[in-house]
């Protein structure tokens, strides 16, 4: 509204200023709240400065750093690992720290550490477990699901960090230094939480130690399987891969069973009639190997590419029993 003279009435100007002031105050409150939220949301674990301090201080006996610590973020990770960068950035990558360490007595013995801050344990475990080498050997003092070594390298996950210690040779001296680094790194971050509640599903003497893997998306090649865990069980001397994926409701779990079954049939699998004592379970002959899928409560579960049908059935029954107990325990809580 304007007066005949084209001027805004005084009382409207006052109201406008008041409204702007209110909006400005609301903005201030929101900014303040965001800062509080961030402060409260950051877990009490090492931030980038702490981790930098920690890794710059780790000096395995007989080894010295020969380069500065290099840092990479999501924008320039490709400069260091090129074609592998998208896998990390799509899995929650935050920062990478790298550095070369060399033996003081033999310049041919060196290793480069890659400390990936993946933001969350689940992200770190996903990239760790899905790249795990088949020749993985036990890394002493580490849970076999969270650390291993190969001839020349050591790999482990600790909290939100995935760490690679890539060595130049097969050497006892080098391996000792790598183990030393791994232990000091882990001990330097005592508050990092390593593990997920779902890991407790995979139990029993038949479980192959260190076989748990986590797929945050497209597990088993199926788009519907996000947050899917797999593990290997040894039954009747046959290794069988089982999988579990938790849904938000029983109905969603039931629907996902149907979708996965349809997916397997669509890509060439054949329905298989098996005498399975599991309600609603479906089996598919997938070009020879057997696939089984069922749901128990909110869990979708099954057997993946089992070469031995009898072992697949036994593993499915075992998994069904475990999930029944897990559901029972959850309901009881």
């Amino acid at each position, binding site marked *: 509204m304007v007066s005949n003279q084209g001027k805004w009435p005084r009382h409207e100007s006052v109201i406008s200023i008041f409204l702007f002031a209110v909006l400005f105050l609301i903005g201030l409150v929101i900014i303040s709240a965001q800062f509080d939220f961030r402060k409260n949301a950051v877990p009490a674990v090492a931030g980038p400065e702490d981790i930098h301090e920690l890794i710059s201080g780790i000096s395995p006996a007989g080894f010295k750093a020969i380069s500065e610590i290099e840092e990479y973020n999501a924008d320039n990770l490709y400069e260091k690992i*090129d074609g*592998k960068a998208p896998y990390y950035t799509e899995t929650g990558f935050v920062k990478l720290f790298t550095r070369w360490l060399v033996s003081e007595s033999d310049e041919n013995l060196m290793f480069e550490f890659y400390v990936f801050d993946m933001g969350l344990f689940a992200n770190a475990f996903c990239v760790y477990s899905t790249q795990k080498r088949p020749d993985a050997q036990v890394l002493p003092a580490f849970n076999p699901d969270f650390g291993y070594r190969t001839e*020349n390298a050591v*790999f482990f996950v600790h909290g939100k960090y995935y760490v690679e210690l890539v060595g130049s040779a097969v050497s006892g001296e080098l391996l000792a230094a790598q183990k030393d680094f791994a232990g000091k790194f882990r001990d330097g971050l005592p508050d990092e939480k390593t593990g997920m509640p779902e890991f407790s599903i995979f139990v029993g003497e038949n479980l192959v130690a260190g076989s748990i893997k986590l797929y945050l998306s497209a597990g088993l090649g199926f788009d519907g399987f996000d947050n899917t865990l797999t593990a290997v069980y040894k039954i009747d001397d046959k290794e069988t891969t089982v999988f579990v994926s938790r849904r938000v409701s029983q109905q969603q779990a039931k629907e996902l069973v149907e979708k996965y079954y349809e997916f397997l049939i669509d890509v060439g699998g054949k329905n298989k009639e098996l005498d399975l004592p599991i309600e609603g379970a479906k089996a598919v002959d997938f070009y020879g190997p057997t696939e089984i899928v069922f749901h128990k409560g909110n869990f979708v579960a099954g057997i993946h590419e089992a070469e031995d049908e009898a072992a697949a059935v036994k593993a499915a029954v075992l998994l069904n029993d475990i999930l029944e107990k897990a559901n029972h325990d959850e309901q009881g809580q």
Partner: protein
Amino acid sequence: MNKANDNNLTRRQFVARVVKAGASVAAAGIVAGLALDKEGPSAQAQADMVTLPDFSVPAQDGKIISIVKGADRERGVNKAIELLGGIERFIKPDDTVVIKPNVAFASIPALGATANPQLIAEVVRLCYARGRARRVYVTDNPINDPASCFAISGIAKAVEQAGGILLLPKDSSFKTTTLAGGRLINNWPVLYEPLAKADKLIGIAPVKDHSRAMASMSMKNWYGLLGGRRNVFHQDINTIIAELAMLVKPTLVILDGTEVMMTNGPTGGSFSDLKRKDTIIASCDQVAADAFGSTLLGLRPDSLPYLAKAQAGGAGTTDYMSLKPLMADII
């Protein structure tokens, strides 16, 4: 009465507002007009645009691709080139040769993430000794500190010992190019300076698993010629590899399948990522070389979309058997 008047504009007020709005539009138009580049790209920018030379040599039926089995890379590459007619077929006296190995990472040679230094050195020696080349340059554009990548991979030392000349990329080494009919390589910087002074171009690459492209071989090796923020092309990796194969017409490619990175590529990290396949391929047809190379990774050529795209673009054939590969065994 006043309230009614307040709710309605007078004619004078309306005209004033229209004039003000018109003036605003006109002002915006003037500003836009001043900012308009009526000339388009400058003559200088056009002059900086380059076309990569064609380094290929005349085809000889039955001598397009050779595959040599054996554990010794140096003997293997000698035999593979000999089967195609010898290095003299490819390198003429006084030629300037550029060798483009895959030096993507500051990674030790034993991890197999970069081209093998001894293999590169042997090709440098061949170019000088048998091809009587005037100069042999070795270059690549690893984004992460090229000097470190060449040093740690062992390539710098091997090239120097063989008499080759290492060319590390500088800002001035790059010129922009466009692939005619291409979708991604459009006004994009490439490592042109070394190529501008070359008569021949040889690519040397290891066979590797690649988390994005499934396989990294001869064609993917040209990725190292790209400048700029080339990681954007990872979103369409098959197209960029195919376009690179259409853009770069090498004299020869050498594909090293002696120790193949079967998993966790392209960086690897564990010796167990490698598997001995004891194979060296030399080829005038990079698509055929990679089609065969894919089999060393346990893949079928038709599982790599970029091979079909490159073939469709005229860069070569995926049907390497139709070229009747020359085979030899030096075990």
